[in-house]
């Protein structure tokens, strides 16, 4: 047997495709898979959430959270709780019990958690100049709870993390990338939720006090203090104070609510 060397010019073990083109085609397909999974899971979650009863929600929330009462703020907390009770009596067909928890913090902020828990920072109380202002803010947070906004965004966030972990394994950079890119879509959702909570708060305020005075006072103060340029608000979860003021005033005009001057009080 004689050994004859045969030259093979082209390399049979390599594919001919352009790697860049392949990258983009594959990337697009993966994006489609990811998007359809997200939409599907989001849809499924919405269906479940709508049917979650109030007792279930409160039970789960009480199971997860354990609120510690701060002794120094106990008095103020009682006063704010009375205000909340006054407001919740005016919510039609209300089965929820709202509880307020004061947090000793100089930040001007308030938050709503599932189960009817409303957190208020002491900094916010110090900045309040009338009962109506505080009532509007509390009513806004109650609106979030009634609309189940935080449940929806929490569960959507969890669905997102689960999907991206499934798709990308433990690769941290790809996970963070896709989590973040959906985040900017979720911000819009959050802004719609904020505007709806503002509407709810306004109607509740008007129903409780008979007029809508004091609703925009707080935001006017915020708008004056904050010098952030408008486009930065696109990136934040809350709409800019000025746009909230505009929306609230539009709603007042639309519903022909009265505006009376409010009594000035100062909270602890």
């Amino acid at each position, binding site marked *: 047997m004689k050994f004859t060397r045969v030259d093979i010019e082209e*390399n049979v*073990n*390599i594919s001919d495709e352009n*790697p860049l083109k392949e990258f983009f085609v*594959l990337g697009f*397909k993966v994006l489609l898979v990811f998007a359809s999974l997200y939409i599907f899971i989001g849809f499924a979650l919405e269906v479940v959430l709508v049917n979650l009863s109030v007792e279930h929600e409160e039970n789960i929330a009480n199971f997860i959270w354990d609120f510690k009462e701060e002794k120094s703020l106990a008095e103020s907390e009682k006063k704010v709780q009375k205000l909340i009770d006054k407001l919740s009596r005016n919510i039609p067909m209300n089965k929820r019990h709202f509880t307020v928890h004061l947090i000793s913090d100089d930040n001007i902020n308030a938050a709503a958690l599932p189960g009817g828990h409303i957190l208020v920072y002491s900094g916010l109380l110090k900045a309040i100049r009338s009962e109506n202002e505080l009532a509007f803010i509390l009513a806004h947070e109650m609106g979030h709870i009634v609309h189940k906004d935080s449940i929806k965004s929490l569960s959507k966030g969890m669905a997102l993390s689960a999907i991206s972990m499934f*798709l990308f394994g433990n*690769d941290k950079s*790809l996970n963070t990338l896709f989590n973040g890119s959906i985040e*900017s879509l979720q911000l819009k959702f959050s802004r719609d939720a904020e505007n709806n909570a503002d509407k709810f708060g306004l109607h509740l305020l008007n129903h409780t006090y008979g007029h809508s005075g004091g609703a925009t006072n707080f935001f006017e103060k915020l708008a004056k203090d904050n010098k952030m340029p408008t486009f930065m608000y696109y990136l934040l979860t809350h709409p800019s104070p000025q746009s909230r003021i505009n929306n609230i005033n539009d709603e007042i005009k639309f519903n022909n609510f009265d505006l009376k001057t409010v009594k000035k009080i100062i909270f602890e």
Partner: protein
Amino acid sequence: MLELIINLIFLVTITLFGYCTGTFLEKRHYNSIKQREKLYYNLPVIQVKKLSSIDIDENDVISSELVTGCAVVAPDSFKSFTARFVNILGGRVTSYETLVDRARKEALLRLKKQACSADLIINTRIETSDLSSADTNGVAVLAYGTAIILK
């Protein structure tokens, strides 16, 4: 939001950089392989086990020796990024094909270099293994055979 942008820029830069350097290095490696293959054009590397099957008398053999050639090649960031997509969708990982091909050719060339004065190399085997850990991955190829020197 800022974190997202930074992550994105980082990822894109690394991937593009990987694509550029990866393509350049690959071309250079293939050229070198082609040139060196011409050097060892006449050295047969075959996988027969018995010399009698290729009509060579065993008494003609002066010496026989184990020769090995080993090469390790790693993918660039662009290649591994594309491969991750294929891990989800399935199909051929064409980005890794050149890696394995280069590593095998390189291993065989090194085998031939080690046995340069031999007449032929028989019983050649190629073993491919992957080196993958959390951060790095690559392909290690070992080619080994018996170099025969005839009278």
